[in-house]
């Protein structure tokens, strides 16, 4: 058999692509001729030397894949964690601001409750004041409005300002900062002297602040059905 053909057979034998007929032929040649057997033996060793190198390179490739996979996993987990934390912080912040700027919260924060001090100032109608305060605290704003309307109609100016203020707060809690309410509040701010007038201005400023507009205004317009649940 010519050398080139034999080399081809040996190559196929080493790669495992030899057919059964050629394999039998080669095995017979190996058995009959020691030169062929030795040639196959040396070829096997040479093939093994390439395989050793291939395996070395393959191991390196697998290590690289491992590194890339672990890096991707770490990146994914850290990325996921950061995004999750950001979402949680955003939701918490949104919730806090929604509660802070909620009209009921603003009204409750600014409501002047009936205490011993106020009772000394207003001197009379103690029961009506106490009852109105309880109604407001129990979130029965309609009842509180009715009672503060009666109290505000009194002739005592200090009682009038205080009752009018609490009336506005009750209206705010009941209907939110409507246009009518804002006009009434502005009128109150201009008409009332001293600290009560300043307080009215600061409450009005709150509703015109950019933070309120950013957090609460879009919510009240577009997501009015979602608003009560969020609040």
């Amino acid at each position, binding site marked *: 058999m010519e050398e080139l053909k034999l*080399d081809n057979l040996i*190559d196929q034998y080493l*790669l*495992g692509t030899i057919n059964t007929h050629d394999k039998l032929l080669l095995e017979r040649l190996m058995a009959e001729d020691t030169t062929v057997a030795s040639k196959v033996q*040396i*070829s096997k*060793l*040479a*093939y*093994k*030397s*390439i*395989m*050793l*190198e*291939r*395996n070395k*390179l*393959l*191991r390196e*490739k*697998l*290590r690289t*894949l*491992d590194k*890339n*996979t672990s890096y991707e996993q770490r990146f994914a987990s850290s990325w996921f964690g950061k995004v999750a934390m950001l979402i949680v912080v955003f939701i918490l912040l949104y919730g806090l601001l929604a509660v802070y700027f909620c009209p009921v919260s603003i009204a409750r924060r600014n409501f002047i409750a009936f205490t011993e001090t106020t009772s000394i100032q207003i001197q009379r109608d103690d029961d009506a004041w106490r009852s109105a305060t309880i109604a407001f605290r129990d979130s029965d704003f309609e009842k509180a409005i009715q009672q503060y309307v009666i109290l505000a109609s009194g002739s005592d100016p200090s009682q009038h300002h205080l009752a009018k203020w609490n009336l506005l707060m009750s209206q705010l809690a009941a209907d939110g900062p409507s246009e009518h309410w804002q006009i009434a509040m502005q009128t109150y701010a201009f008409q009332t002297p001293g600290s009560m007038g300043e307080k009215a201005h600061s409450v009005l400023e709150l509703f015109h602040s950019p933070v309120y507009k950013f957090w609460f205004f879009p919510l009240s317009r577009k997501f009015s059905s979602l608003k009560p649940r969020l609040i």
Partner: protein
Amino acid sequence: MNHLHCRIFYRDEDYLREIRAGGSRAEMAISCLYLKYRKRTITHLKKVVAKHTEFKAVPEDLLHDSFIVMLDKIMDSSCEIRTLAGFWVGIGKHLLLNQLKKDQRIILINDMEEIYETQAENMEWVVYDTDEDELLEKAFASLGARCKEILLLWINRHTMTEIAQVMKLSNAAMARKTKYECFKKLKELVRTGYIAGD
């Protein structure tokens, strides 16, 4: 490795077909196969390794070695494979047990001299095997870079046309001739190495 490329493989049969096809098709399939079953296999192998505290190597090495053995078995078309994941784990366990047996043998030789004679034959094979690998590695390292590259492409079952393209040779016949010359050179280096070793 872009994972998106691996979407073309769905079943184990696809991997087997592509790996057996060799060349660049096999290269991609190998990476994808490794990435697909890597996590599952390493988990299994870690459990097995944890049961054998005497096993010194790290599970990752076992994972790589068993993967390489699996690839060789896949190339051998006569081997019947049901599931690649199970096959990989099976090879890993087999390699681990073999390594444990080998380690045990060496410990016994060190501790009990009377057993040495009975194990000598096997030990000689182990030492001879390592020496042989060293000789073979040295022989391959002596080749030129171009020859190394051609032979590695050939062993990875790239066609002569592909080899010609990669190596910028004029045609497949030229690639075949170059490969022939390189392999001949390597055989000569191996033969010389063995004669010098003797």
